[in-house]
């Protein structure tokens, strides 16, 4: 155990600057769209990850999309109940989001192309501080 780890165990404290800094990213889903190549990058960036252009405009991620790929994890780390369904979602209108599905009764229902929507949920507990963000829920077909 490093000194840092020992100290952290003795006096748990949330890494609050990180949460504060990430507020626009986490709660407002702010990303960027490249004015030159159209690439959508999330979280926000001043330089396009794809083409290197400095011309970036704010882009708010849509909350609905389709599963691009997924897996069913039977060995998640402590704090998460197995199985978790990890997804990468193609958002409607552009952009991708990596996340977890929630409220899935039967993981076998999940397929590539399944429609999902973001819902606001408790995501993690870090050193006693509950932290909220978006997870995905299956869209009920009308």
């Amino acid at each position: 155990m490093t000194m840092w780890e020992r100290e952290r165990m003795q006096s748990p404290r949330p890494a609050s600057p990180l949460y504060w800094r990430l507020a626009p990213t986490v709660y407002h889903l702010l990303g960027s769209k490249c004015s030159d190549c159209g690439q959508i990058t999330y979280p926000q960036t001043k330089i396009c990850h794809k083409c290197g252009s400095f011309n970036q405009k704010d882009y708010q991620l849509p909350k609905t999309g389709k599963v691009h790929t997924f897996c069913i994890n039977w060995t998640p780390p402590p704090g998460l109940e197995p199985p978790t369904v990890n997804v990468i979602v193609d958002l409607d209108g552009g952009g991708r989001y990596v996340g977890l599905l929630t409220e899935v009764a039967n993981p076998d229902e999940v397929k590539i192309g399944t429609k999902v929507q973001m819902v606001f949920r408790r995501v993690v507990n870090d050193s006693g501080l509950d932290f909220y963000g978006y997870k995905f829920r299956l869209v009920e077909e009308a």
Partner: protein
Amino acid sequence: MSIRGKVAIIGVGLIPFGELFHKGLENMIQEAYMKCVKSIDKGFDPKDIKAAWFGQWSGGGMIGQGSREGTTLASVLGLRGIPISRLENGCPTGNDVFRNAVLGVASGAYDVVLALGAEKMRDKPGVESLIAAGGAAGGGILGLHPSWMLGMGGPVLQALYATRQMHQLGCTMEDYARVAVKNHHNGVACPYAEYRFEVTVERVLNSPVICWPLHLLDCCPQTDGAACAIVCRADLAKKYTDKPIYVLGTATGNDFKDMWDKENFIEMPATKFAARDAFAMAGIKPDDVDLAEVHDCFTNTELMNVEDIGFCKKGEAHKLLKEGYWAREDGHTPINASGGLKSHGHPIAATGLAQIAENFWQLRQDIEPVRQVKLKKGIALSHNVGGNGFGASSINIIGREP
């Protein structure tokens, strides 16, 4: 500018990989290095080493120690007074450390250079060690993205590819299992492998699901190990050995770092970039390669890598595997004749150098006869891909002739 033929490998050393609870990082480093020095046929004076690169991925975090700088080698190997840098570049650390050592010689700055990688992966109990290995895989540290690494370790990252490979390329879990069957078969005869047993497709598919679609036996084990190589100016090599092996091409490729930026999940552009540059430097094509050690941290990864390196077209690796194409005995570019990460385990920084050691012995025909691959052009390739979005890859191509 090509550096083909300017640098030679004169010796390699590695220790049998495994759960080496009785050995510390320092013990493993010393053992691998001493084996390497002693193996150099015409004798070698360690004072000839003028610089070293030390590969270390976990940085001491997994053994409860502070960061491990280059000074680790200065003390442990008695190499005070020479420049030693530590390098960490994800799973390609081993092949990238070798590349840096080669560039050190090719630049003309040093005549003889040591590249060494070592990793203690097993000291912490199972879950803790896996979390440490997956970065902040436990969730709770957000880093860049609100759900980045939330419940994601190596198996999740690769399973996200594996699902898409099945969907888009038509491969199946049976195809993934066949990679394990092949590599474990090869590993049985390799004295350096951790898990030396045969498996069948049924056994792989009946092993516990770790992260669907990947089973336990689709995953490489987490393992302790150390490996090294000594390289020198090609024109000095015969002073140390009559059978030097030459560096033909060396490259590192980088793609988007993170999973959500990826264009697709059936290929890894990092590997394609590294392969493009390494083959161009060597002036050869994938067909010229006699054997390759290819990163098989998970079974689906090997199939993807074989395609991305250029040994076959996208979507064909699993079909050719079914025909027996990549087998050690087959003659069509054997992949992971050593048994690969599947049977050796994956002590990150040591892995790439162990691959280079296998290729060195294969090309010199200094190997157990049952393991010897048929040589045609006398060229071998080693490859790693990794980083937490599989955005980094390193490739080294070596050969019997400069």
